[in-house]
């Protein structure tokens, strides 16, 4: 009887351990196999977004990002060999959580385009802020014009989040200009 009990009580955790090991092995294999594809997919989306906000550019190169809070990354946009603009990625708080905004500024610090790449806003209300039709209105805007743009009705916090992120980008552009980065 005691022997049976020992056998039963040892077998159970051993089987569980074995299953966990097999599953872990399988996961590690899949991760290794898919990692390059995942990195490629992410890079493709990032390049697409950059091209979308800075349509004149044909290539981008990462640049040094000035120390501005909320700024994620800066890319210089090149048309041929000349710098034609800069692409900023900034984060701010929306209504449902953090939102990530990517925007392009030309050499005078005016917006060439902006896109919201990540957000958790209310469908049908806050999500209108990410519509191409709405964001197209920001094209050509400088710092003050962008801040004075009409928000989306019924999505006050979401609109505020977008403007905050744009302000971060304008600040970063100013800081970079001062440092002589572009």
């Amino acid at each position: 009887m005691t022997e049976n009990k020992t056998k039963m009580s040892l077998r159970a955790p051993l089987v569980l351990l074995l299953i966990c090991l097999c599953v872990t092995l399988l996961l590690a294999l899949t991760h290794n196999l898919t990692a390059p594809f995942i990195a490629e997919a992410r890079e493709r989306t990032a390049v697409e977004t950059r091209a979308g906000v800075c349509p004149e550019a044909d290539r981008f190169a990462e640049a040094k990002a000035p120390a501005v809070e909320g700024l994620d990354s800066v890319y210089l946009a090149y048309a041929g060999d000349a710098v034609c603009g800069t692409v900023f990625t900034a984060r701010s708080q929306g209504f449902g959580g953090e939102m990530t905004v990517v925007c392009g500024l030309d050499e005078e610090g005016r917006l060439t385009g902006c896109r919201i790449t990540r957000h958790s806003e209310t469908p049908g209300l806050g999500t209108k802020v990410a519509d191409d039709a709405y964001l197209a209105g920001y094209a050509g805007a400088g710092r003050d014009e962008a801040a004075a743009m009409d928000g989306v009705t019924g999505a006050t916090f979401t609109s505020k989040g977008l403007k905050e992120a744009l302000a971060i980008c304008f600040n970063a552009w100013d800081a970079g200009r001062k440092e002589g980065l572009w």
Partner: protein
Amino acid sequence: MNAKNILLNGIVKENPVLVLALGTCATIAVTTQAVNGLGMGLATMAVLICSNVVVAALKDLIPDEVHIPCYIVIIAGFVTIVGFLLEAFAPGLYDALGVFLALIVVNCLILGRAEMFAAKHKVGEAFLDGLGMGLGFTLALTAIGIIRELLGSGTVFGWQLLPQAVSPMSIFLLGPGGFFVFGCMIALVNRINVKRGLPLRNACASCPKVGFCGNAGEAGREVESCPK
């Protein structure tokens, strides 16, 4: 149950969403757009088939005392693998599903079918059950998604069907609207099932005690003889 019955069971008679009411969280959250409902359904079906097959294959090796953690590890493993594959080869769908992809692990449908069916049937039958339940899940999610997207955004799979002048009802994109459509569809399916003479409730499949109840049977069990 023969192969055809097992397959059709999950699509009509015991449709996981509309009859068994399993996986409701994912259903309401993801069906704001028809294409997301379709994608989620297919991802869940993939995991369901894989986990059903593995559980059926290992059912004699897994001791009773640890069967639940074993099933969960297997299910979580497959969900993670599906996640990796989607992120690598279908990043649009991956982003759309977001956190709900990971939540497939706790979708009652998968653990429920593992306990209720795969643990007691052969690998081939478990495969068919996974396929049938997965198809039923996908069809229900896509149907609900089409209705909610049409009423809430005026589009279906991205095609603008409602004229621009007509303002869509955004409530259908939110929780309450989702439940409303869900409830109406359950009522509709119940109506159809009653007309065909099928029992109104197939209680055992969605009962939380299904793993412990000695009387747990398949579809058609009389509700009165359930000890709970």
